[in-house]
């Protein structure tokens, strides 16, 4: 996997390393990337079709230059542009991002804890997020399609709650994270600010019981998300809900650690 340019416009493979050395070199690169081991993603859709990888790949392609390096100013400008309408409001928090992470919804792997939670509960695994990365913002992205036959100016109120454990093991509380009113005719991504929940889950992964979505019509009646056009688990791969989090590395300088 290593190639050297010999200076006369010819690239040659570095094949003089023994297997053991190659493994060590791979480990060096993994460490450089801040990883302890080579990740083994359990399941992942094609980067072109699944919503979270697609969002990230688009972002990556916006940022990278021809030689694969990134212009830091371009990185900042692109993030700014993408987040002018962001739920996070404070663009400054996103400007400084050193790392952006999209989380896949793992609600289906979790034990149901709330009645009728299908397509209303979301679970994002924060257990691998390193503590030295400070969360500057996090948003839940839900895709909404237009509601057929709805009157003009009809709207829905979307509320996202953080699920919390009560004193009794069976008790669960819902704490409001954010809310937003959207028109029934809206077609696109709804961005809900969930920074507080993400920060809490990073520090205390055991407290992470996920998020709960509630949708109300103009009469204040609770409706199922699909009635408001919010794409659920059975919807298209590229419209599945996911969470995006922005991080700032606490230490600017690369710290050498004894390994």
């Amino acid at each position, binding site marked *: *996997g290593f190639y050297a340019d010999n200076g006369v416009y010819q690239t040659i493979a570095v094949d003089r390393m023994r297997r053991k050395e190659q493994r060590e070199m791979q480990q060096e690169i993994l460490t450089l990337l801040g990883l302890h081991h*080579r990740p083994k993603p359990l399941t992942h859709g094609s980067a072109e079709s699944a919503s979270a990888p697609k969002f990230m790949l688009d972002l990556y392609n916006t940022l*990278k230059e021809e030689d694969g390096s990134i212009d830091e100013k371009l990185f900042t400008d692109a993030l700014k542009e993408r987040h002018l309408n962001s739920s996070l409001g404070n663009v400054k928090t996103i400007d400084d991002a050193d790392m952006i992470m999209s989380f*896949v919804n793992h609600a289906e792997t979790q034990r149901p804890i709330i009645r009728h939670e299908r397509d209303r509960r979301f679970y994002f695994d924060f257990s691998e997020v390193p503590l030295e990365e400070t969360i500057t913002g996090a948003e839940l992205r839900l895709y909404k399609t237009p509601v057929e036959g709805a009157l003009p100016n009809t709207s829905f109120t979307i509320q996202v709650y953080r699920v919390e454990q009560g004193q009794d093991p069976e008790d669960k509380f819902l704490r409001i994270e954010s809310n937003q009113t959207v028109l029934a005719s809206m077609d696109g991504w709804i961005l809900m600010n969930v920074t507080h929940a993400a920060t809490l889950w990073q520090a205390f992964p055991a407290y992470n019981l996920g998020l709960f979505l509630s949708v109300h019509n103009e009469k204040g009646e609770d409706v199922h998300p699909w009635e408001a056009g919010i794409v659920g688990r059975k919807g298209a791969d590229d419209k599945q809900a996911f969470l995006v989090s922005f991080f700032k590395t606490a230490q600017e300088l690369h710290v050498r650690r004894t390994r």
Partner: protein
Amino acid sequence: AARAAKRKNLEISYPDEPLQMFAPPSYNIKSCKRKTLYVSFKALGWQDWIIAPDGYSAFYCDGECAFPLNAQMNATNHAIVQTLVHLMEPEKIPKPCCAPTKLTAISVLYFDDNSNVILKKYRNMVVKSCGCH
């Protein structure tokens, strides 16, 4: 010591440059410049978790910082002083060092164990230019 040994294994015998034999003796040494070590994530079989890029040009600086430093366009003022002192006491004082003068960032897009996707910016990762320090 382990790092030095590893580096030695990575060194490649570069063929002499065509113009080298016609150059004056003082230029006969390979001057400090940027060289490429391309790390191919694809060839490493890492594409199941690294989405992009296929690999990256790690780059490194290689060559001599020899007197005179006129040929070294990126020589620092300090490098010139270091050269002069080295000439006075060649056994004791080392020559200037061929090292990066400009570094830029690279971003890597990859999956973690939970199939989450990470776009991480690594500062000072890619060598843009080399020079004598």
